[in-house]
């Protein structure tokens, strides 16, 4: 079995301020349990919710990082990365079937929003806190989508594609203990993101994920 080959983006690309093309309002409301056709808000309640949304957005600075790494597979659970690093996970191995590379990505909403969520909870204003929490979670998720789209645009010209979905440490048998390695490979400290001894990213509204890159665009098929 040969080792991984080099990838064009060997270094980490950082994004100090990700501006989402659109705010995932529907996803935020859905996360809060809103169901179209069922949930009814009075104008005042709608205003209050939107005020909390606006406040959340003013506190969030989305940052991200991504790197492409070549991969090689061994057996049913081993994913070999450059530098001798290894992920061991059957489910991740299956998820990455067909990938020639992976992209590791990380995103954070910053520390201010976490502090505000805590502050609102301590003040007994859970109605505001849950909205701030939902906005933070959904925008960080959207930031990962954004990073995925960025990588897709980079690899398209190479005739490759980003595979559907992404996988995070802590899912299935891809242990959360891989988080410190991902944190290190992405250099997330640069974005103000640390990892504690429980392998949890700090600040809380930070995530990492793995996606596969496959060689996949057959453009000469139709003539």
């Amino acid at each position, binding site marked *: 079995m040969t080792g991984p080959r080099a990838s064009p983006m060997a270094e980490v690309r950082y994004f100090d301020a990700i501006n989402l*093309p659109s705010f995932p309002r529907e996803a935020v409301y859905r996360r809060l349990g809103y169901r179209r056709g069922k949930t009814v*808000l009075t104008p*005042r*309640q709608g205003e209050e919710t939107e005020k909390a949304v*606006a406040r959340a957005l003013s506190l969030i600075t989305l940052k991200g990082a991504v790197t492409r790494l070549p991969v090689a597979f061994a057996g049913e659970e081993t994913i070999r990365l450059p530098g001798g690093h290894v992920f061991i996970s059957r489910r991740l191995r299956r998820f990455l079937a067909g990938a020639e590379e992976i992209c590791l990505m990380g995103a954070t909403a910053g520390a201010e929003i976490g502090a505000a969520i805590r502050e609102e909870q301590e003040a007994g204003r859970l109605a505001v806190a849950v909205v701030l929490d939902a906005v933070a979670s959904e925008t960080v998720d959207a930031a990962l989508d954004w990073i995925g789209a960025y990588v897709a645009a980079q690899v398209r010209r190479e005739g490759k594609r980003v595979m559907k979905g992404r996988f995070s440490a802590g899912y299935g048998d891809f242990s959360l203990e891989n988080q410190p390695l991902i944190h290190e490979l992405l250099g997330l400290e640069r974005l103000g993101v640390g990892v504690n001894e429980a392998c949890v990213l700090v600040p809380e509204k930070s995530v990492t994920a793995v996606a596969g890159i496959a060689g996949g*665009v057959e*453009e000469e098929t139709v003539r």
Partner: protein
Amino acid sequence: MRKHGNRKIKGLMEKKVLVLDGATGTELQRLGMPAGVSPELWCDRNPETLLRIQRAYGDAGADVIYTCTFGANRLKLKDHAFHGDVRDLNRRLALITRAAAGPRRLVAGDLGPTGRFVEPFGDLPFEEAVAVYREQAEGLLKGGVDLFVIETMMDIQEARAALIAVKELGDHFAVVTMTYEKEGRTLGGTDPVTALITLQSLGADAVGCNCSVGPKEMLQWLRAMAPSATVPLVAKPNAGLPRLTGGRAVYEMDPETFASFAAPFAEAGVLMAGGCCGTTPDHIAALASALEGVTPRRPARRSVSAVSSARAHKVFEAHQPLVVIGERINPTGKKNLQEELRRGRTDMVRALAREQQEAGAELLDVNVGVPGIDEAATMVEAVKALAHVTDLPLVIDSPRVATLEAALRIYPGRALVNSVSGEREKVETLLPLVRRYGAMFILLPLADGEVPEDFPRRRAVIGEVWKAARRLGFAKEDVVIDGLVMTVASRQDAPRAALETIAWAADRFRCPTVLGLSNVSFGLPERRWLNAAFLAMAVRAGLTMAIADPTREELMGIRGAADCLTGRDREGRLYVRRYGGGAPAAKGGGSPVQDPAAAVTAAVLEGDREGIEGLVRTLLETGREPREIVEGVLIPAIVEVGRRYERRQYFLPQLMAGAEAMKRGLALLEPLLGGDGRGVRSRGLVLLATVKGDIHDIGKNIVALMLRNHGFEVLDLGRDVPTEEIIRRMKEKRPRVVGLSALMTTTMAVMGEVVAAARREGLMTPFILGGAVVTPEFASSLGAAYGRDGVEAVRVVAELTGEKEEG
């Protein structure tokens, strides 16, 4: 050396729609280029393959062949460990295309993205981006390109840097095409019309879209761009959207279907059309055939009155509702803001921007003039900071040329410059600068340091400045005439002179107009009424925009009313939308004649935290007993809130608001409950904790609030609580139920450890588990109960304690 100059290319487009080439990367792979290499470096070593492909596109009918230099900038080449001469590489690659194109076809020097985002949206300094593209463009010029294409751009600021780099090398024909995601915005959030306004004003000779989508999706964007286009449009779509077949993505659109979009493209104003990913010489041949004989459709207009930010634009039209330019980012008279700017901070600038945007401003005036600071550097920092917090286009406000120049260069949109007056120095230095960066400008009708008091003299100044502007190539749509109102305190007819100027500019000169509204009341008391009245008069005179404070309700109200009364707000729709919600509900949530108990119930149902205490007091005054209010009014109300939540009629914030209102009502009544001798009745103590290693607790806190509302006493140990501590407190407090929360698969396992430790200590207290990753099956495997959410948790705890269910 170029074969075809700028004018010649424009001349060609008057006769036909120019055909661009198709995809190169995949053709190269088909002919043997290995995956993962730099196409540019490979072609440099294998020129005959590139020559073959590009000749094929020429033979297929392409009028324009792109050089194979998409990634031949120094930043992208670094990824492939290239340390050679970038200029010379571009020159060599251009020469290959020159040879392939022959004398009849045009060679386009291809500039692609660096892969980085340019400040303020990324870490690549703007001037470094300009230098990177300049280096590439110099090499391409030496290789004999006829024009430049800046393509597949996802960052409007990077596109600007590349365009500026090209234009600073000479009057070269420059095409800019952005790549838009399926939602119709670039990754940077720019929509096609905003990009068009920015790029065409900055000097792009043609603007359009390439890549990401097929022709069907791209057509809608081109149609959206057409009404605002002053330059030809460009379309270079993919061969449809790729479909996954056997694990690989395949572009399925055949050449004939691809070419069927030729006529609609031309109809939309596309004067340059080709193909991107998935297209082949066959697609280009079909397209060229379909475009034969098609009459090119020139842009409908020579200029457009519009400004833009990175992500939004505003078009100024006659008879539209008045545009408010927020005036508050101005340190005059604001000591705090002056101090902040001196310290190099922008927190207040950002807060003022947000506040004004929320209040309804559509543009923001930015002035950072504070004595003793580097105004140019401060303005640049303000512009960069604002790019992140607001989509509103900016009005750059400064009397200093250096400040305006620095701001216009970095501003990622089309700005409005405030202002250019009739002074010779301003006309001679500012106008060319504004033109260079394609901005609009406010024409201030004053000259020689004097404010002309009457309209005829103002008109004369306007005429002089306009003459100079026209010589530089400005159109009337690029100009905004300032009515220049002075304070009525010093001259009674000052407002009349301003209104006359506005009316003349709107009706006769036919360009947008602006007023610095609050000048009219300077030195007088209760300025707001004067400002508001003058605003209404100015709207009637034809005013387009006002520099004013959008947080003043009376101003915005008068603005809305004036728009409604003058017909600018058709059928008063905006007015009704803004004010048609009716009077806000009185505190307490109900009408004065509502039954006091019903009012308390309504307050819980509606989450009226502010009003509930007053309503509870009212209910107490009717003689209702505190315990009866708790058990007969509040608890049924919160139970109903829970039911509505479970039926999805309420979502989480409504559940929480109801619970918080309930909590406030309870807090008022609890001290009174001891009076009947029965004391505060507790349904039992519940111990809650988020387990060791887990810092998530919002769900647990929701459960705590709900349990307390339902009469349970709650001891919340917080988050990341060691197992030993939970056991110790169980022994000490003897709770009736213990609730554990975990949000991660790793900490879920700790729940098992806590339950096992409790049982080893002989503690048979029932457990209830919750958290995003916890399932009923997992809880059951530990012999514990499961609570999906706060409402269910209350029900489950009541069952575990044998307490009667309420409501």
